[in-house]
């Protein structure tokens, strides 16, 4: 479904790596590993469509990707370093906006049942400003469950999370992959997923 062909990624005119080819199908998990500065975030931003690849091509469902592709926009979820939350708005207002932006419906009950395991039950109407860094990260992670995207692109999803939070991310990833989803995850720490499907490791900067 997702095809990377001879991708080269550059930052400020310096080529970080080139010749990366990769194919991901339903149930596949690709973990991107490598030292700081190897280009993990840059690779994920290229796959997400935020940055242009220095060379090579990307395909989704057999079609080359253009910036602003509406199908890819609905089916791909990108969680970067910044959670994309407005500090002045409440947890539920933020998530509602992000879901409507992605063309997914908003269901207040689904929100409550999703926030409870995140330890955010009862905080739906609290402004994001009043949350800790870990709690903000958890709000961003709630989108994984709510927007029903097929391809998850997660950049260091475990940052700021406690042990329980990390286990939850692993469980959600397992369920996502078992349901035929795809995921590409950049992480320093082991993810702890148990899903038996295909696992690829993209090692950068070696």
């Amino acid at each position, binding site marked *: 479904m997702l095809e990377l062909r001879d991708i080269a990624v550059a930052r400020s005119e310096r080529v970080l790596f080139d010749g990366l080819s990769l194919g991901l199908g339903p149930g596949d998990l690709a973990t991107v590993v490598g030292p700081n500065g190897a280009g993990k975030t840059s690779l994920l931003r290229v796959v*997400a*469509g*935020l*940055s*242009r690849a220095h060379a090579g091509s990307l395909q989704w469902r057999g079609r080359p990707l253009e*910036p*602003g*592709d*509406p*199908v*890819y*926009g*609905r089916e*791909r979820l*990108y969680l*970067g*370093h*910044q*959670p*994309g*939350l*407005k*500090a*002045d*708005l409440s947890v539920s*207002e933020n998530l*509602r*906006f*992000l879901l*409507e*932006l*992605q*063309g997914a419906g908003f269901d207040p009950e689904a929100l409550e049942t999703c926030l409870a395991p995140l330890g955010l039950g009862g905080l739906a109407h609290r402004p994001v400003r009043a949350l800790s860094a870990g709690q903000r990260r958890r709000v961003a992670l709630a989108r994984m469950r709510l927007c029903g995207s097929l391809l998850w692109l997660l950049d260091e999803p475990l940052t700021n999370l406690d042990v329980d939070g990390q286990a939850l991310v692993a469980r959600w990833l397992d369920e996502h992959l078992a349901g035929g989803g795809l995921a590409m995850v950049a992480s320093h720490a082991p993810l702890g997923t148990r899903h038996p499907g295909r696992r690829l490791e993209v090692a950068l900067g070696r």
Partner: protein
Amino acid sequence: MSGMLAAALALARRDLRAALRRWGELALPLCFFVIVLTLFPLGLAPERDTLAAVGPGVLWVAALLASLLALESLFRSDMDDGSMEQLVLSPQPLALMALVKALTHWLMSGLPLVLLTPLVAQAFYLPGNAIWVLALALFLATPTLSLIGAVAAALTASLRRGAGVLGILVLPLAVPLLVFGARATDLAIQGQSAAGPLYLLAALFALAVTLAPLAIAAALRISVD
């Protein structure tokens, strides 16, 4: 199509809500506008003829500078908290999202300025008829200014200190607005029809509202890259 509309409304609602919760930032350009305008009668001779002569020009320049002040924040917070990435990645057309952001911005910065003008224009002894022409001209010009400004704000969004560059980019492009706007007010003061310059301001708005969103979208894609 309905998803596109729902997303556009959701964006407008989010921006309005977030801005109203920090109403102090909204009030800042308006206070600046009023203070600048009260400085002129104090600095110049407070004579009726002098003030009525410089009034239209001073009002227009103050309105331009005040809206420039509000422009810096247009994309800044979205860039800082990562919501700009999500906007660019969304399945919605980025030009539509850009248009919504620029017009929402106008609702909160341009429109209050227009509403305030009839009050502050009293300080310059403008005749009643000219005050309404002035307000109408500002009502036509400020959305154009928001759209032009949004292009520049999108280009400078990734710069840490973009405010100075913003002024240099926007003010030359605002010259036609200033020329036609001040002309309309002048004609009204002389008791003549101001329809010509007002139509030209409306035409400039039509031009900006069709072209600027595309330019803003392209600039935003560059800025998040």
